C-alpha cells in the first residue's frame, strides 16, 4: 500500500534530524563554533559530551576537548579559557554539578559567560538517574542565569540564544540550560537544524573587550578584596542580571527574525491561558502531560491553562504577575523540593508566592511536589492537582501545606 508523501515542514533550508535533546545541544554547539569544551562523565549530561566528541572526531567541529579529572577542574578550565577569549561549553548533572560548586560560585563575579548544560538529575543519595531540578537550582542565588527547556528543538534554539545573551557585554554572566534527564536528554525527536550562515548572522563573535586576559591588555583577575570592595562588586553583578532582561528580549526578537521561529514571549510559554480560571505552572518536560490533560479538561468544559516558565533567572516577575493576576487559582508543580521551606513548598512555588505578594489581586496559590527522581507525571496527577485548584478557587483560600502527588502512600 503506497502512502501519500507529504512535504516535511521546516523553515526553508533547515535540515531535519532525528536527534535527542543532548544531540540537539551538540548540533547547536557545532553551529556556534565553540572553542573549548571540557568534559567529565555523569549521566544524563554525558550524552552531550559524547555527542560533541563525535562531532570533533568526524571533523564537524574544531575545538579543544579537554577531559578533566573531575567536575571542579572541568568548570575551572572553561572559566579560564573564557577569560582569554574562548567561547566555551561544559555541563554536568546531579552531584557532579555539586562537586563543581566552588567554581560555580566564583564564575558570576568574574563575569564569565560560561554556557553549561545541566542534565537534571536527582541528587544523591540514593544514587539515581532520574530528573529532579534541585541540582541546577542550587546556583539560583549566585548570579547564574537559569533556563529550562522542554523539547529537543527548544534545546537547540536555546543553546544558540544562550551564547548571544551571555556573551553580550552588558551581561557577561554564566548561563545554565536545564534539560530533564531521560525525557529530554535521551529521547530522540525530529529537529530542524538551521544553516551555519544563519547562525553566523545571529551570533556575533565573543568579544571580551576590556576584560580580556591578554598581554596586550594587562589586567589581574580576581584580586583579594576586603570589606571596602565586596558590596560594590555584588552591586555590579545585580546590575548585570537586571540588564540581562533587556538583552534576552532583544535576542529572542532577533532570533525570530533570523530563523523564522521561536517564542514571542521569551520568559514563559502560555498554553490556553487566555480565559483560564485555573493556571498551572511547571518547568521542563512536565509541560507535556500537562498539555495533554489540559486538552482533555478543556473538552470537559474546564477552563484550565498552563504557564511553563523557561527563565528562572532572571525571574520574569512583572510579566508573570500580570499573567497570573486574573486566575481564580494558581497551582505550582515543582519537580524539586525545599525541605523546611515556607509551607514545605518547592522552590518554584515559593518564588511565585513571593512574586505575587505585591500583586493587586492574589489568587489562591497551591503548591505541589511531583515527579521527583524521574517518577512519571501522569494524567491522574494533573487531574488531582487541578481539582484541588478548583476547590481553592471556590473557597478563595490557599491551603497551608504542599501536596505530594504520585507517592506510594
Amino acid at each position, binding site marked *: 500500500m503506497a502512502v*501519500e508523501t507529504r512535504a516535511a515542514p521546516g523553515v526553508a533550508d533547515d535540515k531535519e534530524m532525528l536527534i535527542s535533546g543532548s544531540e540537539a545541544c551538540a548540533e547547536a554547539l557545532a553551529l556556534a563554533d565553540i572553542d573549548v569544551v571540557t568534559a567529565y562523565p555523569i549521566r544524563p549530561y554525558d550524552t552531550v559530551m559524547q555527542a560533541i566528541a563525535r562531532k570533533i572526531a568526524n571533523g564537524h567541529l574544531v575545538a579543544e576537548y579537554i577531559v578533566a579529572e573531575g567536575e571542579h577542574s572541568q568548570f575551572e578550565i572553561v572559566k579560564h579559557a573564557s577569560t582569554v577569549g574562548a567561547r566555551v561549553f561544559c555541563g554536568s548533572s546531579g552531584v557532579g554539578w555539586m562537586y563543581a560548586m566552588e567554581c560555580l560560585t566564583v564564575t558570576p563575579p568574574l563575569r564569565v559567560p560560561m554556557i553549561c548544560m545541566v542534565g537534571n538529575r536527582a541528587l544523591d543519595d*540514593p544514587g539515581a538517574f532520574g530528573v529532579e531540578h534541585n541540582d541546577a537550582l542550587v546556583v539560583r542565588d549566585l548570579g547564574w542565569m537559569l533556563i529550562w527547556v522542554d523539547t529537543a528543538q527548544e534545546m537547540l534554539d536555546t543553546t544558540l540564544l544562550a551564547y548571544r545573551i551571555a556573551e553580550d557585554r552588558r551581561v557577561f554572566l554564566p548561563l545554565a540550560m536545564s534539560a530533564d534527564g531521560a525525557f529530554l536528554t535521551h529521547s530522540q525527536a525530529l529537529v530542524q537544524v538551521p544553516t551555519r550562515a544563519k547562525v553566523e548572522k545571529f551570533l556575533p563573535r565573543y568579544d571580551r573587550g576590556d576584560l580580556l586576559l591578554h598581554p596586550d591588555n594587562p589586567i589581574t583577575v580576581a584580586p583579594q578584596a576586603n570589606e571596602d570592595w565586596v558590596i560594590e562588586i555584588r552591586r555590579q553583578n545585580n546590575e548585570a542580571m537586571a540588564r540581562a532582561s533587556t538583552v534576552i528580549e532583544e535576542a529572542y526578537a532577533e532570533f525570530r527574525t533570523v530563523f523564522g521561529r521561536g517564542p514571542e514571549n521569551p520568559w514563559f510559554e502560555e498554553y490556553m491561558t487566555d480565559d483560564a480560571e485555573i493556571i498551572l505552572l511547571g518547568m521542563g*518536560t512536565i509541560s*507535556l502531560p500537562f498539555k495533554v490533560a489540559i*486538552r482533555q479538561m478543556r473538552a470537559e468544559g474546564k477552563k484550565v491553562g498552563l504557564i511553563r516558565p523557561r527563565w528562572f533567572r532572571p525571574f520574569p516577575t512583572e510579566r508573570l504577575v500580570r499573567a497570573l493576576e486574573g486566575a481564580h487559582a494558581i497551582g505550582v508543580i515543582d519537580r524539586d523540593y525545599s525541605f523546611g521551606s515556607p509551607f514545605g513548598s518547592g522552590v518554584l512555588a515559593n518564588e511565585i508566592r513571593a512574586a505575587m505578594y505585591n500583586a493587586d489581586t492574589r489568587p489562591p496559590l497551591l503548591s505541589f511536589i511531583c515527579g521527583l527522581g524521574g517518577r512519571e507525571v501522569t494524567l491522574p496527577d494533573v487531574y488531582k492537582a487541578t481539582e484541588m485548584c478548583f476547590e481553592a478557587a471556590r473557597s478563595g483560600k490557599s491551603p497551608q501545606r504542599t501536596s505530594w502527588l504520585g507517592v*506510594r502512600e
Partner: protein
Amino acid sequence: MAAFTCEVVYRGIFQKNLAARICRGIVLSARKAGRWGIAFGRYGDSPQRNGIPAKDFAIVADSQEELEQNMARYEPKEVDVTICVDDTLSKGVESWAWYGLQPINRLTLPGGTVLMTSLQSPDELLRDIHKKDAPWNLALIRAKASFSGLWVYREDHTEARILGALARLKPEFLSLEAVGQAIAEAEWGSDLKVASARKAHDRLEVRPVTMAEGNGEVPFSFEMPKWWEMREGVTIPAIPVGKPMEGGKGYVPERNPYFKKYTTRTMRPVIDFDKCVKCTLCWLQCPDSCFDITPDGLYDANMESCCGCGVCEAVCPAKDCVTMVNEAVFDDNASQWEMWRHDKGQYHTWLVDKISDTRHVARSHGFRFRGQYQEEIKAELDSGGVTITAGIPGENADRKQA
C-alpha cells in the same frame, strides 16, 4: 488522527545498537509520509549490562499534538507491535527498570503482534510465551538472534528485515516503499538491505494466537512498599546467610528475592555430575553465587539465579563436565541435580541430547576464532535469502553526518 507504537525488547549492550537502528528506522520511515515520531529507550534500563533485557520504543503519529501524549513517559502503556530480537526473551523479561518478570507480550495490544526473530516453531515458542487474556499474533522472521556489542555491529540485515516485516504488519504507517527509502538513506543502509527488507516483508509468517495458548505460569511480581513502610536512611536489609540443603548437609545461599536475573540468560550450564571432581572452582568463581552445594558435595547451578555467563564452564578442569547449552531448548528452571539423583540413566540420556546437538552448544554471542563472523554471516544470509557481497558493513558510510 492515528498513532503507531512499537517496542523493541532486546539484550542490553549486545543488541543496543540494533534496537536503536530499528527504532530510528521506524520513525524515519514514517516520516516519509509526513508523520511525526520519537524514539527513546527505557531510561531505567541503563546503565545497561551485558545481556540484561532492555527496551527501546518508537512512536509515530499523524500530528505533533498526538505525539505529545507519548512524550515525557517512561514507556507506553500498550504497543501495537512488540519486536523481540532474541527468542530466548520469550520466557519473559526481568530488567533493571522494574520489579518482577514481565511476559514478552505484556504491552502488546489485544489483536497486536509480537514480531520475533527465531528459528523455533510457533508451537515451541508458545511453550515459553505467557498466556494473554486477549488474542494476539505471533509473527516470525527466520533468523538467529543478532548479537554484537557496544563497539561492533553485526551487519546481518536484522534491522532491515524487521523494518520490512513491519511494512507488512502496518502498511498504513510504514509502506514498503518508505521503509526501502529510509534504509537506503541510512548511514548503515545499502541496496542489499533494501532487498532484505522486501524479502522479509514477503516471507513473514504470522500465526494468530488464542487466549488458550501459551505458558500458563504466573510471572513473579512484587508490591512496592509505601513511603512510610520503607526503612529510613536509604537502607535496605542485607540478604541473610544460607542454610544446609538437607539433613544438615550441603549449602544453599540466600539470594536476592527481588531480582532473580535469569532472563538475562541466553545459555545455561548443563552439568554432568558423574564427571565432577568436586574441585569447587565453579562454586568459587560464579559471579552470582548460583551454585547450591548438594549433600553429596556436588555443585548444582540454581537456574533461578544463573545469568548464563559461562564462567563455570571456563574454569571447570574436568572434560565435558560443564557444557553451556542454548536457553531455547529448555522449558523450565528445574534442578539438574534432583533430576540426576532421581534417575541417573534418564538424566544421562537428557544430558547427551542437550549437549550433542552442535546447534545447541554454539555460542549465542562472542567469537572464538578469527573469521567466524564472516563464516557465520555468509551462512545466515544465504539461508535468509540474500547473497552476501563485498561492501558490508556501512556501504553508505560516506553519508555519515553526525
